[in-house]
């Protein structure tokens, strides 16, 4: 594991201490299940709705349109430089809501645990998850736990679903980019993917790399507040598949061509080096705390200033533009001034020797 587990704030309560590791019974619906909920999940996540332990959370109807999203988290290893599956499970769903302009309100969390997962590991994951939710201002109001046989999971999988509310009049979507739009990214590319890669079995290397895992809704709020209504067209968080995958999707959905300026892409030197070493391209590497924005050309500079004024957007940059040429295709202008089509990846980018 990359770093010693941070389990400050969580000490194993007595009933759970009898079981240093998860056993099948923790997902069996009996006493062990309820002990896990009562002594681990409820104290960590807090809130009266979860504590009621009903079959469903009852929530007041929010004003405006609901945004509703779900995401599953299977990252391996569970802990990596700069984060863990716990923060990811909160930030991932919060960010999906935020990219539609929603203010995130509630999350549910479903855990699939592998028999034998040390209780301290689960405790640390839950503590980090709770801290991330608190910091993001969202409540975890519903949950579920199942346990699978040893050898049938990488310790812990988490599925979160989230609900948020979208202010009236705000229209964002992957199909709303227009020719002329500026393409912005909120910071350096590839930090998360390379941080996880650095601790993968078989590839391990040492570097000052950390996942960029963060909740982006306040950054989105700041961006939207700084610009005239309607000038932000599309927001996406470039997770799996990286910047290239989301820009490719936006180009297709909006029927625009997108041209990336490679020299303008912000990439940390260590991430650049790690990519060189493994034969990868940072535009295909995952991020967990960055957004891509397509905004009307006349609002581009204001958008850049707004992003840079926020702690999560200090290294924001304008990295390209959308146009009417080659609709549906992502093109990169290389450092040499040539243009190349950015190929779609079939699956995960693999380290190459060739």
């Amino acid at each position, binding site marked *: 594991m990359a770093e010693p587990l941070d389990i400050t704030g969580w000490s194993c309560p007595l009933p759970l201490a009898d079981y240093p590791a998860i056993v099948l019974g923790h997902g069996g619906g009996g006493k062990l299940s309820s002990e896990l909920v009562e002594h681990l999940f409820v104290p960590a996540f807090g809130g009266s709705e979860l504590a009621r332990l009903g079959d469903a959370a009852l929530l007041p109807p929010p004003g405006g349109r609901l945004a509703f999203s779900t995401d599953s988290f299977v990252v391996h290893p569970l802990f990596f430089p700069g984060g863990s599956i716990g923060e990811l499970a909160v930030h991932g769903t919060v960010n999906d809501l935020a990219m539609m302009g929603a203010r995130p309100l509630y999350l549910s969390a479903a855990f699939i645990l592998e028999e034998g997962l040390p209780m301290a590991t689960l405790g640390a994951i839950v503590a980090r998850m709770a801290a991330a939710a608190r910091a993001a201002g969202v409540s975890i109001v519903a949950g579920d736990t199942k346990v699978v046989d040893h050898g049938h999971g990488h310790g812990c999988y988490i599925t979160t679903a989230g609900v948020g509310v979208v202010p009236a009049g705000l229209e964002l979507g992957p199909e709303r980019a227009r020719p002329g739009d500026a393409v912005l990214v909120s910071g350096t590319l590839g930090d998360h993917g390379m941080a996880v890669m650095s601790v993968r079995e078989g590839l391990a290397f040492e570097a000052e790399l950390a996942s960029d895992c963060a909740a982006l809704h306040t950054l989105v709020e700041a961006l939207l507040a700084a610009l005239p209504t309607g000038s932000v067209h599309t927001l996406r968080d470039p997770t799996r598949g990286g910047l290239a995958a989301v820009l490719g999707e936006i180009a297709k959905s909006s029927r625009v061509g997108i041209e990336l300026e490679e020299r303008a892409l912000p990439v940390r030197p260590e991430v650049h*080096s790690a990519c060189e*070493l493994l*034969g990868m391209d940072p535009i295909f590497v995952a991020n967990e705390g960055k957004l891509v924005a397509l905004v009307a050309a006349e609002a581009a500079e204001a958008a850049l200033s707004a992003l840079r004024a926020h702690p999560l957007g200090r290294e924001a940059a304008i990295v390209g533009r959308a146009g009417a040429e080659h609709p549906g295709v992502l093109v990169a202008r290389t450092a040499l001034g040539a243009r190349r089509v950015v190929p779609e990846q079939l699956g995960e980018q693999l380290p190459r020797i060739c």
Partner: protein
Amino acid sequence: MCLAVPGRIEAIVEDQGLRMARMDFGGIQKQVCLAYLPEAEVGQYAIVHVGFAISLIDEASAAETLRQFRELGLLEEELGATEVEEAGNEVPRRVP
């Protein structure tokens, strides 16, 4: 065929009877096998492929190649040949 990257030898150690180096690749550190470069010393740069250093970088030769690249085209400029000056071109120019 062969993705190989230059790195700097930071330390030399012995591991399972193999000469190994800790090398730095622009802020990334990795253990590399030095068995094929018995003469390599700390501080030198080497090209590394799949975890093996296969060739030392001749730093004088690299500097000379770069100098030639940078000077390319300057001769024609002196002779008055047309050359479009690119924005951001920082090649030193001599006064004709």
